[in-house]
């Protein structure tokens, strides 16, 4: 139905890496990802033994815990043609950082490299790998897009979401002045250095408001929760959503941090 890939693609056996924030806070992002992947001809599975990619330990300097978690993820995603995450930072962890954890263990390093070679961020997988050029979705309003850091700088996610958003009916796009500057989330950074994080997200929210957009999109839930929390604390009416939700025509869901009117 909604997706018309530019070239014929064979169904692929794809594993979804849900990510812990999507699992806990915003399951609709996972379902949106599955819909986009299935519409592009993939068969999607969700390996049950996945938890977190290990970034909290990795970025806190706890290498041993990181290796244990990475080993578990490598086991969980064994055998899939592709592993796709609706997050640039988690996708980047699998594809850019796992191999370096096992420099002293050639067998595990080979497995980590194997996983790295078939791990993707969702937007990049849809556009760069599957050749998806447009989606059949509708969204009324002006949106702006924040480039989350890992997706942008580690994985080169920049044009892909914009290209797909361009095909959403009713959607008008409007760039921020500095969409590539970090929002100040940074995982544990935002609670370890709350004042700096607040200064960064404050600047980001000002940039967002200056665009006049009614909706803010991004590809990483951590950044989205940070920016949504700031916008809402400032009393801004800007709605915040994961880009996959809009592309999967799920733009009618309650935005992040807003009450679910339907179930109130």
């Amino acid at each position, binding site marked *: 139905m909604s997706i018309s890939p530019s070239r014929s693609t064979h169904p692929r056996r794809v594993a979804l890496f849900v990510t812990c924030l999507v699992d806990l806070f915003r399951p609709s992002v996972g379902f949106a990802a599955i819909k986009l992947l299935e519409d592009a001809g993939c068969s999607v599975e969700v390996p049950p033994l996945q938890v977190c990619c290990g970034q909290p330990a990795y970025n806190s300097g706890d290498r041993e815990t990181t290796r244990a978690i990475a080993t578990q993820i490598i086991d969980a995603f064994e055998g899939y043609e592709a592993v796709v995450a609706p997050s640039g930072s988690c996708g980047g962890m699998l594809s850019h950082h796992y191999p370096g954890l096992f420099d002293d263990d050639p067998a595990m390093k080979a497995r980590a490299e194997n996983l790295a070679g078939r791990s993707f961020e969702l937007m990049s997988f849809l556009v760069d790998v599957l050749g998806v050029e447009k989606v059949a979705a509708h969204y009324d309003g002006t949106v702006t897009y924040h480039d989350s850091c890992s997706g942008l700088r580690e994985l080169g996610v920049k044009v892909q979401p914009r290209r797909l958003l361009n095909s959403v009916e009713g959607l008008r796009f409007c760039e921020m002045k500095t969409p590539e500057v*970090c929002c100040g989330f940074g995982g544990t950074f935002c609670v370890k250095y*709350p004042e700096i994080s607040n200064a960064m997200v404050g600047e980001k929210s000002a940039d967002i408001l200056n665009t006049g957009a009614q909706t803010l999109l991004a590809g990483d839930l951590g950044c989205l929760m940070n920016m949504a929390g700031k916008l809402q604390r400032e009393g801004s009416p800007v709605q915040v959503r994961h880009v996959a939700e809009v592309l999967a025509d799920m733009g009618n869901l309650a935005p992040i941090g*807003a009450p679910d009117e339907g179930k109130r």
Partner: protein
Amino acid sequence: MQSTAHDFKDNVGAALANPNLQESLTMLKVGFSERRRLAAERLPEFEALRDRARDIKNHALANLDFYLEEFERKVIGLGGHVHWAPTAADARRIIAELCQSVGARTVAKSKSMVAEEIALNEHLEAIGIAPIETDLGEYIIQLRNEPPSHIIAPAVHLTKDQVADTFLEHHTPLGFTKRLTERNDLVAEARYVLRQKFLDADVGLTGANFLVAETGSSMLVTNEGNADLSNTLPKMHIVLATIEKVIPTLEDAAVLLRVLARSATGQESSAYTTLNTGPKRAGDLDGPSAYHVVILDNGRSNVLGTEMQEILRCIRCGACMNHCPVYGAVGGHAYGWVYPGPMGAVLTPQLIGVEEASNLPNASTFCGRCESVCPVRIPLPKLMRHWREREFERHLTPKAVRQGLALWGFLARRPKLYRRLTGIANRVLALFGRAEGRYGALPLAGGWTRFRDFPAPQPGGTFHSQWARHGGTRTRP
């Protein structure tokens, strides 16, 4: 200089509450990054040059002893002197003795971060020699008795009005009693005041951007020309440089120069790039009669061969701090020592100890913008992460963080238990947050909710519980 890196969090609070600083940082964030981007776009070969710049510095580091000896041989061959300083104290002593050997009363200094690193000014003042900073930015902060806040723009934290007040206060005794309002007038007044000091100085002291082994030349890159006056007018020129500044050849210098100015200020070329090779020659009408190079180690040789080695490629362009959102929020003084921003967050713990500087490599979101603009492709986030690993290994990570991590790590390795607990957390957070969709305050999350609302989970349970409910057969057998 005395470090306040251990007070990083207090420094941050002060920086965020300083309106002049915040005004200055607003200009910095837009200006430097935009100029660098345009300069890089104008040179199609820029990315290839960055690759080569990285390779050149790696080659120089792998053969550092050879190139230092070669450099020394060439300097001596042309009548110059080379002094070796293992520590900061050695460098201070050598420079003091050189100054005293010519009876120096004043030293014209060109901006040198290494001189800041070894607290040279304080040492010279203590023995009755007046160091005069001649770079405009350094001159301004010397008058204000402040440390530099940026490695190439030391007074970038100040506004024009603050400079005007400083000049009025310090130049009034010299007869300049009018408070100036225009930048060009401020520059002209400083030029006039400093010109006489140049002419009177007994010693000129400069740093070096590069030491060229092939020719025994020290290479200096500036815009003002103050370094050139420092190494031309006084009778003695002292170059203070650290071991990693040596590069093999002039061809290598050409590559590094092409990336340096563009990365630093977005200029195609800085106004002055100068090669100095030995003292005044027979027949020369000007130039110093004595030329000394002080080569300082100060712990750098210990970094070679370690996972931190890549920081020794740094050519001090400042691009990492110009693009760092943390630096952009708090400025350079918050870092508490000589080198701020991402390169400082990696280098400072090495030079003054990770206990003192433990916050610096932690105060980063790992956004990676620094690495993306580094002309010699230093993986700064990776190196900051290595510091965090060393802190963790040495149990320097704060207790609350360690305990939280231990609990989280325990759960993350037990998926079934993790699912049960996240299922409960999801339901509780969703239930109590249902009316508003978010929390204004949450226990244990004060760092977040002090400044931001905390979004409540969507109702309906975790993703995995929903998936198991209606899609179980499609999961992996």
